[in-house]
């Protein structure tokens, strides 16, 4: 088999867990990008004829106490939650990676300080700090992003630092130094591409975690604010009607689980994939 054909065939030999995860994530993206195409109803439309209606042909996921279609609301909420997945991770990713890269390469005092800072931040429970910061700044998604940034960069920094230390030992870095390349070039053109693999994998899994975080905060009223449809908010909406209308909390909950599962599977699958194929 000629090399191009072989490569193509290999590209399609994706292991099952990764395929499932990718399918879920693709579905979520679809919901986020084109909710109107998928949702049968307007998420904000009240329908007094369908108050607290259980799941049925008209409303597959049932309706809430205002007659709004849960399915539609869940689909529209995907947009917010995917946004959370992205925005709550990008900041820590960029900041943490940068700091970790510098610390790992330069060593010395900077690295020492970074290490102590990481230790300090890690002594506090993540969720507690985030809630505390949001409580101070006020509820809302933007404040949540800020809070996550302030604390979350540490995980990326630690990971990137470890990878940088590893790569730094290898002879291709020494060769770059002997060839007279500047530290900036060595860091960004040589070390970073080789250290990126575990960061990317961690990032995908982190997105799953941030969706959970966003939903938790939404549930507590500290994240997205009603009437914005966000899965955590939807669950909060339904908590007072739990015994009468379990579907109000159930289906958004399933969505959260699916999202978390999808991203985790992709993360794990990527780890295996990137290892083997280089």
């Amino acid at each position, binding site marked *: 088999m000629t090399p191009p054909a072989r490569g193509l065939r290999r590209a399609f030999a994706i292991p099952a867990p990764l395929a499932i995860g990718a399918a879920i994530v693709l579905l979520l993206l679809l919901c986020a990008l084109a909710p109107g195409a998928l949702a049968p109803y307007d998420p904000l439309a009240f329908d007094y004829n369908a108050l607290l209606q259980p799941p049925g042909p008209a409303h597959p996921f049932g309706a809430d106490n205002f007659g709004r279609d849960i399915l539609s609301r869940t689909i529209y909420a995907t947009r917010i939650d995917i946004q959370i997945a992205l925005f709550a991770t990008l900041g820590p990713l960029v900041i943490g990676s940068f700091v970790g890269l510098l610390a790992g390469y330069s060593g010395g005092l900077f690295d020492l300080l970074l290490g102590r800072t990481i230790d300090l931040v890690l002594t506090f429970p993540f969720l507690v700090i985030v809630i505390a910061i949001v409580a101070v700044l006020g509820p809302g998604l933007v404040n949540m992003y800020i809070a996550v940034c302030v604390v979350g960069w540490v995980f990326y920094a630690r990971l990137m630092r470890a990878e940088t230390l590893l790569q730094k030992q290898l002879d291709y870095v020494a*060769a770059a130094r002997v060839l007279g390349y500047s530290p900036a070039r060595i860091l960004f053109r040589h070390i970073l591409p080789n250290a990126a693999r575990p960061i990317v994998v961690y990032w995908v899994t982190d997105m799953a975690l941030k969706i959970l975080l966003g939903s938790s905060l939404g549930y507590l009223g500290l994240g997205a604010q009603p009437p914005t449809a966000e899965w955590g908010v939807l669950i909060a909406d339904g908590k007072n009607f739990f015994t009468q209308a379990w579907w109000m909390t159930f289906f958004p909950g399933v969505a959260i689980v699916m999202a978390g599962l999808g991203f985790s599977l992709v993360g794990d699958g990527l780890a295996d994939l990137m290892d083997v194929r280089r």
Partner: protein
Amino acid sequence: MIPAAEAELSAAGLSKSFVGSRSLIDMALGRPASRLQALRDVSFEVARGETLGIVGESGCGKSTLARCLVGLHEVDRGEIRYRGQTLGERKGSARSRYDRAVQMVFQDPNGSLNPRMSVGECIGEALAVHKLAKGAQIARRVAELLALVNLPDSAALRRPHEFSGGQRQRIAIARALAVEPSCLIADEPLSALDVSVQAQIVNLFLELQARLGLTLVFITHDLRLVHHLSHRIAVMYLGRIVEIGPAQALFAAPRHPYTQGLIASAPRMEPKRVAGRDAVAGEIPSPLAPPPGCAFHPRCPRAADICRQVAPALETRDGSWPVACHFASAEGAV
């Protein structure tokens, strides 16, 4: 000895130590950090176009020496000179010139190439950073360099992992040659390769030297290779040079007891050599705790009191070549 003025590369009194790290507790208890003296007062010269072989076993400091020569480590004491000029701070243009003049080939062909860059990008980068070629010229020059190491043009598009060990080593050599060095420091460049492939790379070094007039400092533990390839050989033990002289003569009649033992230990392709006493008794001491006086005395058949107290200087004692031994003599060579 070569007068310093003519030497391509010279080292004078190089000393280098590594200090271990201490934990906070160690600092609190006042425990000193462990100090590993990798190089002690190492001096030598290499003439232009010459091949100097450096041999030694674990802890002798040859790799540290290689790294100091190319600037990967800063020496604690001593000077390195390139064509008579001391490389002091080596900043700016002086540094750039030295970087280009003295290049290195590493031991592990896997680790010494960036796995994510294609061969062409890798070599092209060296050309671009040092402004030796621009634009379309780069590809042409890369092809020339690949031809110099007997690799086809098509190699430029591929990544290191698609090549064999010997080919990767050639790519590393091409990269080093891209900046037009006059001096190559090769740190065990053949150790990771099979015997039949080693021969290919040895021939490449010989050819490049003849063609480009390169000076070569060849570091290895393989005595057969160093004997074949070098004009002169320096033998190192625990951070010092113990003997340095012309390759053939040194091998025929080594003066230092360690050199004698080393050569006697090296397996030769002579079936069933007579088994007898160990060529060199005892263990190689750790560089963290070297013996006082002459570092070799615990294992030396000629050791006397003076050896335990005074480290012998590296000097020519019997009109042959510098030897660091109070009792240097060609007798006792196996």
